[in-house]
């Protein structure tokens, strides 16, 4: 049976409800929150700061260290064991790689910028929410970046091309599923993250990427608004 209608009633190219806020963690140099449906991500940026151990230092430029962490009771499945896992290590790595193309850390040789992404509750699309939050937090930390990074997952569920899969769609049992998280620089349309779980035709993938550009523009607007709001709050 084809997947003609989404369980939560959304249109095929509609994301879940998005909410963003900047400056949520006072002690951090930059911080942001990004909620998409029931997936919540908080990102805190510390630095540039002194880097130890010393062998990690790069005398040419600063380095970016990302840490993705799901809280113990954040997911609908079993309790997530605290501490790093194979999965969190991979996501930390790809998050860093998705953010690095926009960042310029040449001014900070031998130092590090730390990004901590915490997810108090998740329901699919957590790496994308994490990337969105982290990119806002990096901007809030005053780092030089030529663009923000927007991310959202796309996919094909039983023949239908969808935007922002939720958990029920990601784990759809009655047909084949392809889950494709994409991160993009919204202004230039360049892709900084493209992963895929499942199978999809080349033409369909290209169609999804075209669709992504439009969705990313919407997410960029939300991020932009959140960043600007931080400085307007006082005026009221």
């Amino acid at each position: 049976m084809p997947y003609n209608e989404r369980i939560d009633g959304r249109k095929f190219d509609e994301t879940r409800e998005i909410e963003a806020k900047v400056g949520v963690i006072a002690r951090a140099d930059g911080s942001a929150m990004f909620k998409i449906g029931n997936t919540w991500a908080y990102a805190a940026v510390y630095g540039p700061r002194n880097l130890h151990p010393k062998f990690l230092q790069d005398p040419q430029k600063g380095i970016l260290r990302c840490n993705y962490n799901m809280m113990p009771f954040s997911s609908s499945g079993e309790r997530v064991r605290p501490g790093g896992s194979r999965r969190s290590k991979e996501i930390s790595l790809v998050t860093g790689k998705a953010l690095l193309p926009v960042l310029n850390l040449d001014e900070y040789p031998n130092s590090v910028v730390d990004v901590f992404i915490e997810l108090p509750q998740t329901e699919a699309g957590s790496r994308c929410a994490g990337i969105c939050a982290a990119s806002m937090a990096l901007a809030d930390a005053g780092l030089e970046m030529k663009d923000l990074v927007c991310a959202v997952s796309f996919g094909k569920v039983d023949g239908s091309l969808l935007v922002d899969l939720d958990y029920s769609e990601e784990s759809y049992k009655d047909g084949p599923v392809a889950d494709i998280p994409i991160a993009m620089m919204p202004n230039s349309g360049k892709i900084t993250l493209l992963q895929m779980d499942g199978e999809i035709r080349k033409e369909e993938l290209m169609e999804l990427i075209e669709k992504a550009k439009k969705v990313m523009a919407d997410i960029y607007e939300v991020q932009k608004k959140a960043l600007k709001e931080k400085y307007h709050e006082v005026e009221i």
Partner: protein
Amino acid sequence: MSKIIVQDKSIAVPGETLAVGMDMLPGSGTYREGESIKANRLGLAVIDGRTIKLIPLSGRYIPKTGDTIICKVIDVSFSGWRLDTNSAYSAMMSMKDATSEFIARGANLTQYYDLGDYVMCKIVNVTSQKLVDVTMKGPGLRKLRGGRVIEVDPNKVPRIIGKQGSMVIMIKDATKCNISVGQNGLVWIDGEPLNELLAIQAMRKIERESHLSGLTDKIKDFLEKNGVHRTNV
């Protein structure tokens, strides 16, 4: 003819297009991509004639030659002191730059500056690898005794000081405190405890509202309303 897209003194986010056309020039915090000028960071867009620049609103301090900063002594070595500059890089103060006093061979350097002491010093050199050298020879450079040190956003330091020091002089007069502002975002305040608190509150207010106009009047009102505390001695 160029088209300016942002309003003067509005907040721009990374990647936002500020202006289109080759007549306008990209200033600090912006870059050109094709015809358009885009924001390179989060900041306040300022249009100055033909150039557009961004004034940063956040970010850590980066050591710059000529800055007067407040540092904490974090290590004492054979030849000098290592100082925490409230940035990603520590600074080195050599014996000859530290004091005009004669330091005998093999003297215990902690009798001049001990661990945890705060000093006001000036950056004389920053290398490409951000090795920082500071000196304490110069007017107003000294060890800070008593009082308290608070941390403010280094990007707000110009607003705390004000034009020709007008803002900090106003706070000093109103609170009867001695205040020294380091460009690295550390501020030393020494006075009656309640007045010190008032000075801190005033600076926090400046920090929060620094991007809004009419700040001096607001702070003046604030200081007048909250008054000066005097202890009966």
